[in-house]
């Protein structure tokens, strides 16, 4: 059995090794999980000012949306550009480039392993949230949960590919993490992390929906929280973005590798 050209054994070994590696850093991961509380801050801000109503959401709807946004963020957060830049500048990338495994698969494995490590912390934070806001408690149906799980993985894939595109610029600029800011700012405003996209004026919303960002948080969070959402078009847009980004990363990578100078190695 092969997935993306990788044997099951390679996938299993990479994931278990990376999981073992992540467990060495469990305290750090707990802190990282806690550091993703921005949706909760936004929730308390909007609910206190009673702005939620203008978004078409009551307090309970707002609470469920931001808890869902937090959970989606936990399992779609990506940092490949920073790891890649460090490996590229320190020369650690060199042995990876000389092995019959695309180096990006190692970063995918480390992200997935980290997501598995985050899971108990994310559940604990969700339970705490329900204890503090008992009225917002809900259990999504199984189909809802499955679709939210799938769309979150697609969101992770889009975010990973977007950052890999920027990471590949390391072959040209050496400091591509600075360029990551160009993605982070629109991500922050257009993904639905600060405010549900339904709060945007219609024209702004139209433009936002042409970018990949609403499909990173807003779309999966709406499915999970049970808000009305166009599931078919949402998944279609996610698949479209993935099919645009995969060849783009591939082409940029191939061009970039020719320029690699193996600095520090």
């Amino acid at each position: 059995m092969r997935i993306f050209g990788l044997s099951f054994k390679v996938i299993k070994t990479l994931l278990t090794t990376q999981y073992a590696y992540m467990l060495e850093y469990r305290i750090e991961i707990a802190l990282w999980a806690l550091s993703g509380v921005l949706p909760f801050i936004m929730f308390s801000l909007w609910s206190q000012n009673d702005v939620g109503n203008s978004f078409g959401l009551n307090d309970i709807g707002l609470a469920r949306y931001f808890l869902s946004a937090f959970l989606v963020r936990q399992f779609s957060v990506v940092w490949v550009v920073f790891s890649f830049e460090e490996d590229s500048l320190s020369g650690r990338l060199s042995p990876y480039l000389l092995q019959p495994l695309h180096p990006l698969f190692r970063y995918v494995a480390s992200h997935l392993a980290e997501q598995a490590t985050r899971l108990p912390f994310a559940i604990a934070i969700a339970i705490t949230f329900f204890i503090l806001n008992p009225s917002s408690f809900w259990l999504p149906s199984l189909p809802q949960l499955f679709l939210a799980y799938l769309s979150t993985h697609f969101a992770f894939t889009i975010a990973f590919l977007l950052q890999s595109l920027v990471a590949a610029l390391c072959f040209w600029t050496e400091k591509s993490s600075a360029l990551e800011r160009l993605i982070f700012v629109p991500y922050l405003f257009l993904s639905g992390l600060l405010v549900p996209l339904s709060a945007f004026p219609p024209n702004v919303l139209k433009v936002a929906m042409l970018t990949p960002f609403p499909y990173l948080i807003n779309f999966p969070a709406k499915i999970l929280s049970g808000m009305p959402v166009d599931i078919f078009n949402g998944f279609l847009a996610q698949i479209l973005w993935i099919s645009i980004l995969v060849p783009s990363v591939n082409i940029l990578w191939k061009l970039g590798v020719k320029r690699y100078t193996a600095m520090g190695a």
Partner: protein
Amino acid sequence: MHNNPSDLIVVDQLSKYYRVANKQPGFKGTLKHFFDRKTYHVPAVTDISFKISPGEVVGFLGANGAGKTTLLKMMCGLIHPTTGLVDVAGFSPQRRQTDFLKEITLVMGQKQQLIWDLPPMDSLYVNAAVYGLSDHEAKVRINELAEMLELGEELTRPVRKLSLGQRMKSEILAALLHKPSVLFLDEPTLGLDVNAQARVRSFLSEYNKRTGATILLTSHYMADITALCPRVICIHKGKLFYDGDLDSLANSLSPSREVKVELKNPCASEQFEKYGEIQDLNDRFVCLLVSRDKLTDVVSNLLTDFDIIDLEISDPPIDQLIGELFIKGEVN
């Protein structure tokens, strides 16, 4: 360059230029560097050609920045040449085809592929999976190499807890797990103590004998080169200026030999001037530099003219000769 089927590696008129930008010191220099950055091409390797046969152990010699590591990186496919051709085992290295990658390995002193916080064994099993080794093959191979490298429980201890020598040996084990037939070793003994260096050298020599693998090695330690490499390729300022056996290099570099004499009684330095160049004179010990063509006559005359307890003839140390060579930048 005509390729012979017996050549494993063919390097033909290979050149590599790097683009660099210089920055002048101070605030003015910083502003100029920011707004009007001037870049230019620096030649790292220029027009180098040579061939290597299967099973050869070849040492690359050169001062820092001579271009030997750049050459090694082009041969293993890590960087693309600016011009020229490289052929390794019938492959173009920069294409990094899977079959090619399974044939080669690169070990870089002080650079690691092992996962820092996990025991080497975890990284070894990742490598085994990546190279398509079965669990049984991986186990047999790890045991075999661990025995040769004198590694035991170190393989189950986190890498960060290992000494530099243990780490380097584990790195070598990881790099050789897939039975590569061409080894590119860039300073594999860098930073190791004398004993650890000797163990790595003896392992590489044994590995070459057992498997017939081709080894290409750069090192700043002459002991690595003299112990392992019958053939050396010297590079100076990106250009090849010697390719041949180490003994011939020593002969061409130094047409003289050292004659060390222990006398029964002290003698004045003037008494030795006619025999050769006096390198050292200390009480009853004399060291002379004598040209090779006069060596037999000089030794015979010394034994006749003086009361001698001991006499020793040797080549000047090779590292001293190579050092002089890099300063001069040419071979006589």
